């Protein structure tokens, strides 16, 4: 059994005992524990079940690379699935649950998959898609959906807060181990702004566990001194519990800081996402130990040798009385020595190398440990925990020579540098045969805007694993980074190091090297996704030569750990199966984030009220308190209509339309874009922007204009007002204000940079209120408007007025066919004017109306709407707007495109009005069918509906649509598909349904 040792525990504070629960059972741990170490100390070795076969699993690692020990943390509004027990710091009251098991962790029904595993080989999912077809939907999918999956999705809204933080520095150092600290100090002492981040809660990495002296002092003392020196530098920012998540172009990097995960009672955001711009990035991310692929290497109790050593040294956890070590290198001997030093037994060290190890091996033998050279593990005895190791000759096929009873097995297949951050933005790797690892190729780094590499690796992340080489590399890289950032580096001293030398490892990709099938089928590569040696070999046999294809076929490395333990072993097995060298097989792509980060951190503050900006007009609150039924229009909210108590939306729209036509309607039109165009060349510029002739407009007059893009398609429309000789005011659609302003500036800055024109977007300076209906003039007069008669203030003109004591600018324009004024007033007085109009309009039954009534009013008059009649493929000619396209102008934006053969084509569908024969309302977007089918067997079409409404004025459905040769086919009846298999008959008519002569607005 696993238990707590009486003494020791480098990271423990035995003075602070915590209680916590796992699957409802209570346990005790200490401050400094991880959840994994605390569970192990309580003999809770079983922490989860695997993804595919539901096999029992305990922790195999002690840090971020852990694939097995995933738990659900918290409950309700703080619940979070898939958290690694090895990186979860223990706190008092922690609640955790295991995942992927039913009905219980100890007894799982899904483990039946395990015994059926030969029916669930690599590529199983893909094969189920193929044949027989019905099996997927009715047989495979229901079973797989039930049994696959890890943690459950949270059901409650996350109650925590999150934030972003923008930071800038000369040198960003990721990783606070001995290399990161050393490199950061070199950069900091040169005066650079340095940010140093470490993903765990302590500085120094694993050096203190591995031992040795630096400059004559113990590793821990040296680390403490480095940290003190760094803390004394004001130009160095240090963060623990902050992971370098990703490296991106141009020196951009993300840091993921866990502020309160270890102390949930602390006030403030839970996670902070650091968004960092750095001149140089040093990744001192260390290395990860590789497992060995032998049968049963996933049985709880089999751990990485370094992890087992961490549990003993850092957390005073005994993984069991008897620990067998199996290795192909010298470093694992340190685990044997640490276990022995803790008073436990090491029955044997199984060293796959025929000649065994060096100094450390001698030390182990001197300590009385039996070293078995040239041997391997044939298979692990035990189900839910290790009971023994059956050993064999590494050179053989797995014939068991002896079974050694034990409680835990420490395995080591060598080390792989953590190259993820180096690789995220294009840093290349090279294969080092001597050390059997992919390491960064310093000659091919990710390149910045200056053509120089902006990412450097330091320490074990560069490849060297020995302490002396690590320190020398860190000193040099720290100097290189700070020099690259424009500083002068001081000559760095490399301190003398005293630590046992290591002899060379020998690569072992399968144990034993000739393992028979039934052993290979139990030799795990990817623990989380249940991928075994036999699966990768099957993929190779089935023709998967690319490592990327094999990854997807077998799901190797596709779990939440992204193959941190499995990738190198997997591709080595693949290379053997393909009989190709490892570098030729290559690695899969490394992508951010390094380990999963929370959605909360990505979203930051953007949640609740500030999830998205919501734009409000000066009249927004009034509209809200008067029953506005809102709809989004871009980032604005506009009232769709104003339903009264018990009134449907439809009835409200009908009432608003009728009231406006009969007496007086009121619309908040503040969202319309308003752009000033000014300068000696403004007229010339306006003539290019609009299809109409704008330069001939007289000051004080208004003109409706169309704007096209350079491809000739209609992009915006609105009323242009000439304020004075030099100045135009362009009204745009609500959604168009920003992009039309940008469109103007682009042409001015890139094509017509020598034209004397300035523009300014003054949309938000003004509230704009439309007063619409037969009583509109009476209302203006009542508010003190002078000179507003038909003669003094004719249609399509502007006038400065004083209404209710407020200076305003009124435009007599109409989008409804009624007598109508749009009144602009500085935004700060918008509400005051609106309320004055509201009060004065009571005697006329003034009715506020929304966007839907606006649409109906314009459709009754046959006015087009950008976004309804246009969709980015429609030109003004399609809409019968030839009158608004100047024939006199030499050019305008879009003119040339409109002359192309497929634009100037009589077969383009053209705008007409549509009236259903039965008076009903046509469905939105309905298609008019034509005779016959097209090449795809679909019915031919000859038109489509662009706008369709119930007209309360006419008491029937009205619509506009684009129809083949439409204007030449007046009176013809078309069949429109109703979407339910039937057809609705509609007659082609003039698109102006109401007041064709304009009598209502010409008063």
């Amino acid at each position, binding site marked *: 059994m696993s238990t707590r040792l009486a003494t020791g525990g480098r990271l423990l504070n035995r003075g602070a005992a915590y209680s916590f629960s796992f699957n409802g059972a209570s346990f005790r741990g200490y401050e400094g524990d991880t959840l994994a170490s605390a569970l192990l100390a309580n003999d809770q070795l079983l922490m989860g079940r695997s993804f595919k076969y539901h096999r029992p699993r305990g922790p195999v690692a002690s840090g971020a690379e852990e694939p097995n020990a995933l738990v659900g943390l918290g409950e309700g509004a703080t619940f979070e699935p898939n958290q690694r027990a090895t990186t979860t710091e223990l706190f008092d009251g922690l609640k955790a649950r295991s995942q992927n098991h039913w009905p219980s962790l100890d007894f799982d029904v899904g483990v039946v998959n395990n015994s059926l595993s030969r029916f669930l080989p690599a590529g199983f999912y893909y094969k189920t898609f193929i044949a027989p077809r019905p099996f997927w939907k009715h047989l495979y999918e229901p079973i797989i959906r039930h049994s696959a999956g890890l943690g459950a999705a949270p059901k409650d809204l996350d109650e925590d807060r999150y934030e972003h933080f923008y930071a800038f520095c000369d040198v960003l150092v990721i990783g606070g181990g001995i290399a990161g600290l050393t490199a950061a100090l070199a950069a900091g002492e040169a005066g650079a702004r340095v940010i140093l981040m470490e993903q765990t809660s302590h500085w120094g990495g694993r050096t203190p566990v591995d031992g040795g002296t630096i400059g004559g002092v113990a590793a821990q003392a040296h680390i403490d001194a480095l940290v003190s020196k760094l803390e004394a530098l004001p130009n160095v920012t240090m963060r623990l519990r902050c992971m370098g998540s990703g490296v991106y172009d141009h020196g951009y990097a993300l840091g993921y800081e866990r502020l309160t995960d270890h102390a949930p009672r602390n006030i403030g955001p839970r996670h902070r996402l650091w968004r960092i711009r750095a001149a140089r990035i040093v990744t001192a991310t260390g290395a990860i130990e590789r497992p060995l692929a032998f049968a049963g290497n996933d049985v709880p109790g089999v751990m990485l040798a370094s992890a087992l050593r961490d549990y003993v040294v850092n957390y005073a956890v005994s993984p069991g009385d008897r620990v067998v070590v199996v290795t192909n290198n010298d470093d694992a001997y340190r685990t044997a020595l640490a276990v022995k030093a803790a008073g436990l037994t090491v029955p044997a060290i199984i060293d796959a190398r025929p000649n065994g190890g060096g100094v450390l091996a001698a030390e182990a033998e001197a300590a009385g440990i039996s070293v078995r050279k040239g041997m391997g593990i044939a298979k692990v005895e035990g189900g839910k925990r290790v009971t023994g190791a059956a050993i064999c000759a590494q050179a053989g096929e797995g014939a068991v020579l002896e079974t050694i009873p034990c409680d835990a097995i420490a395995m080591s297949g060598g080390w792989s540098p953590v190259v993820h951050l180096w690789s995220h933005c294009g840093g290349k790797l090279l294969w080092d045969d001597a050390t059997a690892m992919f390491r960064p190729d310093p000659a091919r780094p990710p390149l910045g805007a200056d053509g120089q590499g902006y990412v450097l690796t330091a320490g074990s992340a560069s490849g060297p694993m020995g302490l002396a080489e690590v320190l020398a590399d860190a000193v040099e890289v720290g100097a290189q980074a700070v020099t690259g950032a424009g500083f002068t580096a001081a000559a760095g001293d490399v301190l003398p190091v005293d630590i046992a030398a290591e002899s060379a490892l020998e690569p072992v990709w399968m144990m034993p090297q000739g393992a028979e099938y039934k052993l290979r089928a139990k030799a795990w590569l990817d623990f989380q996704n249940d991928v075994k040696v036999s699966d990768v070999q099957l993929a190779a046999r089935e023709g998967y030569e690319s490592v990327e294809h094999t990854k997807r076929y077998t799901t190797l490395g596709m779990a939440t750990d992204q193959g941190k333990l499995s990738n190198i072993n997997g591709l080595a097995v693949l290379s053997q199966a393909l009989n190709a060298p490892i570098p030729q097989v290559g690695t899969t792509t490394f992508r951010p984030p390094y380990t999963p980060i929370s959605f909360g951190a990505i979203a930051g503050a953007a949640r609740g*009220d*500030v999830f998205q900006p*919501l734009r409000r007009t000066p009249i927004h609150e009034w509209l809200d308190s008067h029953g506005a039924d809102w709809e989004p229009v871009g980032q604005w909210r506009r009232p769709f209509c104003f339903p009264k108590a018990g009134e449907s939306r439809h009835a409200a729209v009908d009432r608003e339309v009728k009231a406006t036509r009969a007496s007086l309607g009121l619309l908040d039109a503040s969202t319309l874009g308003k752009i*000033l165009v000014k300068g000696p060349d403004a007229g010339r510029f306006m003539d290019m922007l609009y299809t109409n002739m704008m330069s001939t407009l007289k000051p004080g007059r208004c003109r409706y204009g169309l704007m096209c893009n350079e491809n000739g398609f209609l992009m915006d429309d609105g009323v242009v007002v000439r304020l004075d000789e030099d100045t135009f005011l362009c009204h745009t659609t609500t959604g168009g204000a920003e992009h039309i302003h940008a469109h103007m500036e682009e042409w001015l800055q890139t094509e017509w940079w020598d034209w004397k024109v300035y523009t300014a977007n003054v949309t938000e300076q003004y509230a704009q209120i439309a007063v619409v209906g037969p009583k509109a003039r009476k209302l203006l007069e009542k508010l003190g408007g002078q000179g507003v008669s038909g003669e003094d203030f004719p249609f399509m003109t502007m006038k400065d007025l004083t209404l209710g004591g407020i200076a305003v600018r009124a435009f007599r324009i109409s989008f409804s066919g009624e007598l109508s004024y749009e009144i602009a007033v500085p*935004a700060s007085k918008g509400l005051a004017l609106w309320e004055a109009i509201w009060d004065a309009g009571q005697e006329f039954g003034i009715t506020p109306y929304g966007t839907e009534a606006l649409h109906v009013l314009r459709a009754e008059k046959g006015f087009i709407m950008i976004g309804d009649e246009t969709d980015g493929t429609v030109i003004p000619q399609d809409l019968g707007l030839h009158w608004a396209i100047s024939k006199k102008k030499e050019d305008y934006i879009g003119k040339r495109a409109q002359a192309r053969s497929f634009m100037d084509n009589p077969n383009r569908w053209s705008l007409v009005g549509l009236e259903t024969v039965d008076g009903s309302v046509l469905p939105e977007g309905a298609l008019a069918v034509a005779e016959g089918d097209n090449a795809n067997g679909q019915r031919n079409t000859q038109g489509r509906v662009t706008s369709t409404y119930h007209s309360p004025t006419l008491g029937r459905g009205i619509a506009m649509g684009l129809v083949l040769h439409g204007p030449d086919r007046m009176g013809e009846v078309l069949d429109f598909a109703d979407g339910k298999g039937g057809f609705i008959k509609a007659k082609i008519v003039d698109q102006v349904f109401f007041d064709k002569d304009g009598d209502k607005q010409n008063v």
Partner: protein
Amino acid sequence: MSDAKSVTPLQGAKFDGIATVQEIGPRGMITLRGTLSDATFAAAVEAVTGCTVPAQRKASFSGGNAVLWMTPDELMLMLPAGSVAGALETLAEKLAGVHHLAADVSDARALFRLSAPGVAAREVLARLAPVDIAPGQFGPGDLRRTRVGQVAAAFIMVEEGVFELVCFRSVARYVFDLLADACGETTAQPVF
């Protein structure tokens, strides 16, 4: 002019956290576009504000007035509310015959003051805007046009620990809420 009440978008809303957010204004604001290096242009700017034309990413101050650099050919003039009409007349007069654009945008913007002793106000802005706002990198008189959360904004440091921030009026509530959220209590150690 009328005597109808002018209102700022949030009517002086205020939030106290690790820093204080206060909606300020009304203030007169003029967008002025022209050739910034032109002597006549500079003289006109000085005539209405008393300020010099600021350098790139800077603001200049005189009395209670300020001039903000916005683009290579655009300034924002800040004046007492109510003095804009007169200033526009003066500009038109001084810049007669000189190509320029001057527009009253006093009501198009919302203004906030963000203040705190020490570095707290810097810490708040660093949560929202991609700007290097560390001491030594950004000080009094410095200006950035940037974004705050998801909307466009500009801010200046008027004195150590005090920022003024300007955004479009329609998003005043959004920006206030964001600033207030970023001012929330935290046990995280300050970065600056």
